[in-house]
């Protein structure tokens, strides 16, 4: 395979940091932003007016936006704990479901577009060293897109920051602050099938203050569903430094949980990685986030070898990524420095890359 590379095509500004994005019908871009807005975003050149239009609004950070082609609807998640069903054609909300009493950290749609998983959980002091307290509500929930009904709820140790469906839609994985990832088999009524525990994504403040930071921020099943990728930031002893490794690790579980691969130290810098997405061809994936030290905050890695194939310093923190179904375009979303506040400042960003392979 020729090493893939990225060529920047366009950058779009939004009112605030973009926490998630999805591609709808005809690759229409939708963004979930820190100001609570769900925006329809135009990638076309506009001489007048804004490149975005608000189509729904949450009472808190909008943390997720998902497109169900099967149901022709968008479903958004938020720190207000709500899920909203949005008709993109009418640009209006059609249903709201209270999913959690705390934030929806992340929400993901099943491959068939019939189920939506969302995670929650507040980090509260549960011990002398500030170990997380047990959950007060189920930390992982799965809703039926058609009816809005709760189909599954799973216990976990909060906060649970990431969730992913397997490519065949049968498995669900969710990862938390302390680096614990639980896998459930939805085809067996939600039976727990594995529990991955890694200390590598979590920091506890030895140097500065005593509490836990970090955790697993992104999960993605490998194309064959035989392994699971975890992404985040490597452990750090200074919670205020943000200087852990730009880290991904790959685990298998069939014959007992085993770490199969990880980002090579020589190929990574430092900073929190918030997103990991596979190219539709299944040969490589992108991991992206923030740069603290090094020369990139978005890089393509080979699925087989784990080697870094290409990297970019995008110039701003990235929270979400997605490829078009044909694999020719990559969207990265996040935000620039917020800076001194004003009504006018637009610090959200979506950057569009041509994928050359």
């Amino acid at each position, binding site marked *: 395979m020729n090493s893939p590379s990225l060529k920047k095509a366009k950058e779009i500004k939004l009112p605030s940091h973009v926490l998630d994005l999805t591609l709808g019908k005809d690759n229409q871009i939708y963004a979930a932003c820190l100001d609570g807005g769900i925006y329809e975003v135009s990638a076309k050149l506009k001489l007048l007016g804004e490149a975005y239009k608000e189509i729904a609004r949450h009472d808190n950070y909008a943390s997720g936006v998902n497109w169900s082609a099967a149901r022709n609807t968008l479903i958004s998640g938020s720190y207000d704990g709500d899920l909203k069903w949005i008709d993109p054609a009418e640009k209006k909300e059609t249903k709201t479901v209270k999913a959690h009493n705390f934030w929806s950290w992340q929400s993901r749609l099943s491959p068939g577009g019939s189920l939506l998983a969302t995670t929650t959980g507040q980090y509260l*002091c*549960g011990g*002398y060293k500030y170990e997380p307290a047990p959950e007060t509500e189920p930390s992982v929930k799965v809703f039926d897109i058609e009816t809005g009904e709760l189909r599954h709820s799973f216990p976990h140790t909060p906060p649970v920051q990431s969730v992913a469906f397997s490519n065949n839609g049968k498995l669900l994985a969710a990862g938390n602050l302390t680096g614990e990832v639980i896998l459930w088999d939805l085809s067996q009524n939600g039976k727990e099938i594995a529990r991955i525990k890694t200390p590598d994504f979590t920091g506890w403040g030895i140097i500065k*203050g005593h509490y836990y*930071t970090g955790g697993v921020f992104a999960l993605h099943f490998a194309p064959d569903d035989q392994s699971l990728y975890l992404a985040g930031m490597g452990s750090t002893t200074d919670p205020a430094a943000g200087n852990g490794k730009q880290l991904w690790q790959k685990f298998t579980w069939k014959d007992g949980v085993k770490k199969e691969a990880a980002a090579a130290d020589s190929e990574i810098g430092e900073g929190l990685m918030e997103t990991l997405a596979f190219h539709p061809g299944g040969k490589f994936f992108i991991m992206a986030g923030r740069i603290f030290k090094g020369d990139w905050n978005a890089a393509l890695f080979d699925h087989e070898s784990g080697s870094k194939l290409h990297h970019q310093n995008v110039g701003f923190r990235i929270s979400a990524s997605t490829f078009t179904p044909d694999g020719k375009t990559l969207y990265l979303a996040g935000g620039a420095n917020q800076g001194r506040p004003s009504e006018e400042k637009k610090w959200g960003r979506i950057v569009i890359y041509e994928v050359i392979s």
Partner: protein
Amino acid sequence: MPKPDPSQNCGSPDHNIHRRKFLQGLSAGTISSMSFAGLFGAPAFAQIAKKKQKHCILLWLCGGPSQFETWDPKPGTTTGGPFKSISTKVPGTHFSELMPKCASIADKLAVIRSMKTTAKEHTEGINLLQRGHAPRPPFTRPTLGSVLAQQLGQLESKIPNFILLDPCPEGNEFKGFKAGNWAGWLGAEYSPVRVGGEFKIPDAHRLDSITEDDHEAREALRKFFSKKYENDRRSAAAGSWNATFERVNGLMSCAHLFDLERIPRADRDRYGSGAFGQHALLARTLVEEGAPFVMVANGMPWDSHVFNHEIYQMVVPDLDNIIFQLTKDLEDRGMLEDTLVIAMGEFGRSPWINQARGRDHFPDAWSLAMTGGGVQGGALVGATDKYGAEVTDNPFNEENLFATIFSALGIDPHAEFNIPGFPTFHHVENKADPIKQILS
């Protein structure tokens, strides 16, 4: 575990009350307090006198706590973050939703939302908010705790006059500060005794091989020669060493008071299981035993350059509960009117979110809170703009703050330090006014 006897003390009748303050209340004369020692043997009388003693507990939120997630929320703005505001017991006053317990006792809290200071970095900020004044080399101004130890405590007390409870041994810049000179020109006897976490009081028990009589005889001999040396040579260093020996001697009779395990489990559960809560509870029990000043820290956990919201969702509820429990306990024990509790750090945090999901240092507009003796419950002073970026009403600096603390504790904020050979220094320089709106 049995509940401790509230009249429990260090074991010496001298400790039943704080004699200097008691005498100040009875007489303006200079009569030696030692001659009154016998008066205080009766526990009931001692208990009444003890209540006249002023105390201060400083919850030191080192690192710089965010005003947005505590006392000055800005919900619905681009800087407000994901936490909403909630109404409090005081109509019109709102706190962060992370502080429901404090909201329920807002009528007992005094909140300042308009602190405006200049120090942007930790070392500078810690010094400024611990000492109340910018550095003036080569003179080292004593910290708040050292001044209060001098003003509220008594030298002959066996329980330390300045106790620092800090279970986190590290803390970056705070670690450096901890290793420095706390007492400044007041001298080592006003430095803190540090306890907490890994810092136990070592070797605080008399060896079995030494009898009580022998121990006292040795101590008398040491004291005689040391005092003679100090007097003959006019040695400040020797004086400090003598003060340290006195303190160690006192600690031997007070060591048990620092044992968290002696505190009933129900109380420990109420304060939360984290190290900060446990040591805040210990502070309460030490104040009950007569300690005039206890500072509770826990490293620098409030320095949220990274993951501000992810960290504050935990540390703020912890603080909320600690302030609530302390206030309630002190009130239940009839001690709230004589005990000032302060919750503050060295600055606040920036309105804007940085690339690491954090908030940065921000001295331009920040908040703190107090409760207890000398302050007016329910008071809210100062204001900031829509984004929390500027003080719009009643800016106050560290000098105003220190003048307020001294005034609340009945100490003249503008009194001079009497230090031979030094320039004239005052408790608070520049005749800075206290924040009258929060004084009771």
